[in-house]
């Protein structure tokens, strides 16, 4: 028994390189939620070195405060990934079967219906109604295979992202294809909520499905799918890109253009899964700058210092210890308003949802709106 425990702890220490930590505190200092929750990643990395404490740690509510924004890992001077330690602790809990009901429902839904939103697979393509969408079959050759994302496919607030993308693709004459009802969740959030087994299964199934198309590129609409496919699916054949990469390309090749003057002041919020995690900062800004008349503003905390909106890391389904101070999304919309923005543009469905909630909570609807880049540029498509 004791030997078993030793093996477990040894692998935990080794898996996360815990002995490399010098307790400098950059992870906790950089973590966006520590200021308003009980989470202290440095402390958890420290305590995780003690096998006796792992179970206790996994029962702490604050391990659910983490939004998996990855700032801790980016800033760590020794190459550790405190975020992975937190996810590892969540995994221990899930393995023991201790799961919050909302999380359980989301995970079951991914398993049964291929999405975390408890929606039937049969309605995954409802957003396409009235649109001329090309769907490809496995084996078919296609330059750009489009991956929609569960949230965009089902949530009426953000379906417009996919709908506008189709209009643009058709206009530009791009060789593309959608997967249709067979598309299943990338399982990024299953991983973040600690369901490693389900995540591995989804990686296997999705890899088989996605590789069955003769696609050159896999174009993702959500940064969460983008980052997950790019960094956690080792065997995908197609090159994984975000839609902003493709838009920039089409604009440069003059295959699309924006007409109609814009009078908005647009401020762009960097999604963690696009910016901090994958260094994609310039493409979305490039796209926005092509809209005539749009005045582009910058947050004080932008790019590498962007502030997380708290939408990731399973936060759509689970609450942590958040008590103190306002939500970060509220801070964000306040900052945007202070800068005089009329549009808070993002490139992520989770960011749209959290920031839009914050906007309404603050009562700023009159002066400002939140929109995904694809949603915002809709009216300007020539």
């Amino acid at each position, binding site marked *: 028994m004791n030997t078993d425990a030793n093996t477990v702890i040894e692998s935990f220490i080794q898996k996360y390189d815990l002995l490399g930590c010098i307790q400098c505190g950059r992870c906790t200092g950089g973590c966006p939620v520590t200021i308003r929750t009980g989470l202290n990643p*440095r402390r958890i990395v420290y305590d995780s070195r003690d096998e006796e404490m792992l179970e206790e740690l996994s029962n702490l509510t604050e391990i659910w405060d983490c939004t998996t924004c990855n700032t801790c890992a980016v800033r760590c001077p020794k190459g550790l990934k405190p975020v992975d330690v937190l996810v590892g602790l969540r995994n221990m809990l899930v393995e023991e079967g201790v799961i919050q009901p909302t999380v359980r429902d989301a995970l079951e839904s991914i398993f049964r219906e291929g999405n975390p939103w408890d929606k039937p697979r049969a309605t995954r393509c409802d957003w396409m109604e009235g649109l001329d969408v090309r769907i490809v079959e496995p084996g078919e050759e296609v330059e750009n295979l489009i991956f929609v994302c569960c949230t965009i496919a089902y949530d009426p607030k953000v379906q417009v992202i996919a709908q506008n993308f189709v209009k643009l693709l058709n206009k530009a004459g791009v060789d593309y294809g959608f997967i249709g009802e067979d598309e299943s969740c990338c399982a990024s959030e299953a991983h973040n909520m600690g369901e490693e087994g389900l995540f591995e299964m989804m990686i296997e199934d999705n890899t088989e499905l996605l590789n069955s198309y003769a696609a050159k590129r896999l174009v993702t609409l959500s940064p969460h799918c983008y980052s997950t496919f790019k960094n956690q699916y080792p065997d995908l054949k197609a090159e994984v890109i975000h839609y902003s990469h493709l838009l920039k390309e089409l604009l440069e090749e003059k295959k699309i253009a924006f007409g109609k003057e814009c009078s908005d002041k647009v401020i762009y919020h960097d999604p963690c899964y696009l910016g901090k995690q994958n260094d994609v900062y310039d493409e979305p800004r490039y796209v926005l700058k092509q809209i005539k008349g749009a005045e582009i503003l910058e947050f004080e905390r932008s790019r590498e210092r962007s502030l997380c909106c708290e939408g990731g890391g399973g936060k759509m389904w689970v609450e942590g210890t958040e008590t103190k101070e306002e939500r970060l999304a509220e801070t964000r919309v306040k900052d945007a308003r202070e800068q005089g923005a009329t549009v808070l543009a993002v490139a992520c469905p989770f960011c749209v949802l959290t920031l839009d909630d914050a906007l309404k909570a603050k009562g700023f609807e009159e002066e400002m709106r939140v929109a995904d880049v694809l949603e915002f540029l809709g009216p300007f498509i020539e």
Partner: protein
Amino acid sequence: MNNKPRIGVYVCHCGANIAKTVDVEAVSEFASHLPYVKVARNYAYMCSDPGQLLIREDIKNEGLTRVVVASCSPRMHELTFRKTLAAAGLNPYYLEMANIREHCSWVHTDRDEATAKAKRLVYSAVAKARLLEPLTEKEVEVEPSALIVGGGIAGIQAALDIAAAGFKVYMVEKTTSVGGKMSQLDKTFPTLDCSACILTPKMVDVASHPNIELMTYSKVEDISGYVGNFDVKVRKKARYVDMDKCTGCGACAEECRLRGTIPNDYDMGLGKRGAIYLPFPQAVPAKYTIDPDRCLMLTRGKCGKGPKCVEACAVGAVNFEQEDEIVEFKVGTVIIATGYEIFDASKKPEYGYGQYPNVINGLELERLVAASGPTGGEIVIGKGDKAMVPKEVAFISCVGSRDDSVDKPYCSRVCCMYSAKLAHLILEKLPEANVRIYYMDVRAFGKGYEEFYDRVRREGVHYIRGNPSEIFKRGDKLVVKAEDTLAGRPLEDEVDLVVLAVGLEPRQDAREIIDILKLSQSADGFYMEAHPKLAPVDTATDGVYLAGCAQGPKDIPDTVAQAKGAAASALILLSSGQVKVQAQISIVDESTCRGCGFCVEICPYGAIELVEINRMGNMAQVARVNEALCKGCGACAAGCLSGSIQQRSFKDQQILPQIAVLGAMK
């Protein structure tokens, strides 16, 4: 004469280093039965006096003609045992070593297998030993002068020491003045000596010493040759000011049309100069220089109605026609003292350096607190309406040090102490200020350093353990986002000024010297010493030494100590006047060489050239080895397409039997 070799084998215990893992008794017993072996012994420390005596006695009494020592790497003690042989009247190259420590006992755990391997290594050495030939070491004359590259405190100290010993020194400095980074510092830790006060006398000494030829605003373009005989080529850049005429009066700079418009590097760009300038008042030589990239005459060919500097100069020193000058000379030894650069903090965008004017680096603060600096020593950030005297000040340590995320894993050794010193200076000038230092560990290892750290804490400098992750602006304040790790408390600390304690890194142009001298770099990018402990100022290239931060981050005391060490090493060479060159060099069989030149290409030391010879009445090209340049690396011998090059002591007929017995033994 009886030509049969008589071999002695000596197996070393190296205390427990070898004996713990290898059965040394069994190895010497095994060796005693090998062909031509007359005596085989084992002993606790072969390198000790009694150990060496064993060998000498046996050479005398047993008439040994070859010696095999089975011990550590030849890098450690080959020279020791060669001397032992020579002392007993045997040619030192009749020695062969079997490395049963680094190659055996240190890397194995199974005693039986390690012993078996040690036996094979000894057998192999014995097989080669009988085939060894006697070699003689040649000596070459040493040119009695030294080249010093870099005119910072390291170069200055080395130059003064060598010159004081009576040898000629050529000092080449890239900028217009000697003094280096030390001249930019305000005060020095932990004694708070004024940096300029202790440095400028030495700068003046360098310029006035009869044995030192100072070349500022100059660059080493090429160094060829070998230890004792280096040929150096230096480019003296045109200053457009006649050094002999210029009196340093400064009238030209007063009149320059661009006066006060060009950021002065010496002041970290915080102060401004004109196109004709002296970087700082105590510059040595005190001669003006015209910036060719900015001067209106030199860039456009026109400066108003006529260049005002020419008008202002009473001695007619300004000369727009001046050209670069190439100087060539010979030296016996070279000291590299090229220094360092500070880490560019904009590589860590989370700190906002380059974006916020009140996020500055340590060297910028040095210029702000210095009386000779752009603000006359007042700590003011910004100018005019925006000028601000900071009240809340935060230092961040380890910016670009101990940080894998920017590929700087090493500690820069000076930042803890310069932060403490600068914090002290801020409190001295702004007693109302609140100064805190965010740190990971305080490394106060030098003489008087811990005491200084104690002092500044008691003066009110607040140490907070935690390395900040981010800086952003909120209103007029900068927010330092960090964790007080001792309290486990995340915090957002609002301050007026952030000072980044940036680390030290190799110079961007470090490659230039590497290409010229074939130096190596250690993993951190600094020039690599020959041995980290026992040859810290030497390089792999004979006659070339390192001083100061070119070799790695150092404070001033360590830099001066190393400079004096490098000078001493250079002086050994210079004062002996002669240097032995490698005996185990390559030789070309000119009767079979086809002159293909492949060896010329692969020789890393440029030691081989093609020459034309008369071969049985026909003119033929053949390779020839410069014996003084050859390092005996063996690349040419291994690469030779016609088998015409052999390396002494490593000839085919010597090493093939050595390899053969390894295969023969089970």
